[in-house]
């Protein structure tokens, strides 16, 4: 179906200049992934995992052909935190050395674009390309066309204090963007990675991104993702973590912009003593559609997982939360908690929330809760009784609801930035901003 617009001939990987075109395994992997996509096409709503999210518009509205590098793009103006951390900028999925400022990295830490990594050490990403067969058709599409993205490789014991800040800018040329990120943290290593997707205001591009994370024993990774795509943009992403013993993985997902966003976030707690935290916030308006599908696999004993997702829906927007939690046989002493709370601010907005727990081990503690509601009258009255007018009181309550999630982000700059972005979206947010 999607191939009708972009004739197959036109987008077959061998006809598009892509990184690794001279590496045999890359060419084979791309071709077989493309065949898989071509045979299957986009998922339909008849498939359980896509029941609430219709992706048919992607093929109609956006091209699937990877966007070419655009040296004239004025993307520099959009860079927000130039001075903090290790900055890598990608414009329409292509690494821009000119805009990036990776800074100094400690010994044992390698940070490179995917293209550079394929040139230098092509065997490193190979396992990651191979892993994807079990994931979605969008992952296959990304395998076929990945142009850029970052590879972060932390040797055992290395600690990266400043965050790695990956900024993905959509210039608005309406093409497809295929970033691919890989994070490998060796035993005891630790880092923070920020993925920020920023589209020019009315962009209608299609971003299909995959991030793969491998945590060695005792490694720690904080992963923060912020989606601020343009109003017509489609964003489909997979973030997949594999955890070894006693490792800690914390994921934050913030979706504030874009026409349709789908985030599949999964972690597999493969060895004993892992900690996994998945946090998320979606703030929607107009006809925005945001779908989070999360999945936590407790495979080994004594794993702890925490999941806190919140949604705020206004206009005719729609939120979807599907939280899968699987406790495999033998994963005794698992301690898992999941919560999804949603605020509906208009009659036309809606949310589908679905906790999905499958527990196949004894001696575990698993709890979950989901709510959908409106602003609380008692809280509104309390604020008004202190002289705060009704409109400001409403904005303050919405801010508070969102802030509970924002506060969990461990990067002060980013936390402040997200607070401001949320406040910019609230009717009286400006008044609150000056008082922070």
């Amino acid at each position, binding site marked *: 179906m999607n191939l009708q617009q972009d004739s197959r001939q036109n987008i077959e990987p061998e006809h598009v200049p892509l990184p690794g075109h001279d590496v045999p395994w890359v060419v084979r992997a791309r071709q077989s992934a493309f065949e898989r996509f071509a045979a299957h096409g986009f998922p339909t709503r008849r498939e359980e995992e896509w029941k609430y999210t219709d992706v048919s518009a992607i093929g109609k509205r956006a091209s699937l052909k990877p966007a070419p590098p655009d040296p004239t793009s004025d993307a520099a103006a959009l860079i927000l935190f130039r001075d903090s951390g290790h900055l890598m900028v990608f414009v329409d999925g292509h690494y821009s050395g000119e805009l990036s400022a990776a800074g100094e990295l400690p010994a044992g830490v390698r940070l490179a674009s995917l293209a550079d990594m394929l040139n230098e050490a092509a065997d490193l990403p190979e396992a990651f390309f191979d892993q994807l067969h079990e994931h979605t058709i969008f992952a296959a599409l990304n395998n076929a066309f990945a142009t850029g993205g970052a590879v972060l490789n932390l040797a055992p014991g290395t600690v990266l204090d400043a965050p790695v800040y990956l900024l993905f800018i959509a210039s608005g040329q309406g093409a497809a963007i295929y970033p691919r990120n890989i994070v490998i943290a060796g035993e005891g290593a630790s880092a923070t990675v920020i993925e920020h997707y920023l589209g020019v205001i009315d962009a209608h591009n299609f971003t299909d991104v995959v991030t793969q994370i491998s945590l060695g024993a005792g490694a720690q990774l904080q992963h923060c993702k912020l989606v601020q795509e343009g109003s017509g943009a489609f964003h489909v992403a997979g973030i997949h973590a594999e955890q070894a013993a006693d490792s800690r993985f914390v994921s934050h997902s913030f979706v504030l912009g874009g026409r349709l966003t789908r985030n599949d976030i999964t972690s597999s707690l493969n060895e004993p003593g892992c900690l996994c935290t998945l946090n998320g916030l979606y703030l929607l308006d107009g006809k925005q559609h945001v779908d989070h599908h999360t999945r936590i696999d407790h495979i080994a004993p004594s794993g702890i997982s925490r999941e806190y997702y919140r949604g705020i829906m206004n206009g005719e927007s729609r939120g979807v939360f599907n939280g899968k939690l699987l406790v495999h046989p033998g994963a005794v002493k698992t301690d898992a908690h999941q919560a999804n709370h949603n605020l509906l601010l208009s009659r036309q907005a809606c949310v589908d929330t679905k906790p999905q727990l499958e527990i196949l081990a004894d001696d575990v503690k698993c709890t979950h809760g989901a709510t959908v509601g409106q602003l609380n009258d008692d809280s509104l009255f309390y604020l008004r009784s*202190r*002289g*705060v007018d009704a409109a400001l009181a409403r904005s303050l309550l919405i801010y508070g609801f969102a802030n509970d999630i924002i*506060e969990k982000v461990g990067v002060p700059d980013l936390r402040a930035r997200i607070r401001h972005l949320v406040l910019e979206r609230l009717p009286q947010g400006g008044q609150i901003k000056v*008082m922070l």
Partner: protein
Amino acid sequence: MLTIKNLHAQINGKEILRGIDLNIRAGEVHAIMGPNGSGKSTLAQLLAGREGYQVSAGSVDYLGRDLLAMMPEERAREGVFLAFQYPVEIPGVSNALFLKTSLNSIRKHHGLTELDAMDFLHLLRDKMKLVGMDESFLSRAVNEGFSGGEKKRNEILQLAVLEPRLAILDETDSGLDIDALKLIADGINGMRNPERAIVLVTHYQRLLNYIVPDVVHVLSQGRIVKSGGAELALELEQHGYGWVEAEYAARNAAQER
């Protein structure tokens, strides 16, 4: 300052207030006592502007204005303050942001400049000392995870920061141990002045050992059945509310005859 005349109010068709008459002048401290279900909290909340009550008769005049026609925020800006019996938790909003938003809303209404971060912090530190609150409470979400006593203390902190003309304290003493009660009473006594009226809504006489009222009213079944001096509270403590209600019933019967 506050004149209530023949106030009748209902919730969902059930009459809770059945003809309240009350006159409170600036500088006075009034205690409104009464058994459970007598309408004390309804009166307090209605004065603060809570929705859901239907006023079927009567009037409330506050500084020459029709209080019942004002929005809750308007009442607060004009100096009406209610210390809640059950203070509400506001997750995600720090106490500092809450107090600042509220104080600046009130200041703006009076044409005063909004306080900047430094001035506000100075003010807040002083007031927190007054009610014995630790500064860590500033960064915590409003009332979230606070103990019963901490919530009540937080109400008094707001009272001290907002400096209202008319302060209504709804069961502020309930659930407090003796030390906390003394502390809160000190805070409230410190707020007494000739420009301000204070209304203490309470079930027990205990609080009145520390804050001596000018007038004590007994509310029963939606009416004020007796008013008197501070000594009335002691009598109630000793003999309960039964005799006041009996006396009122006899008086009414006599009038009808």
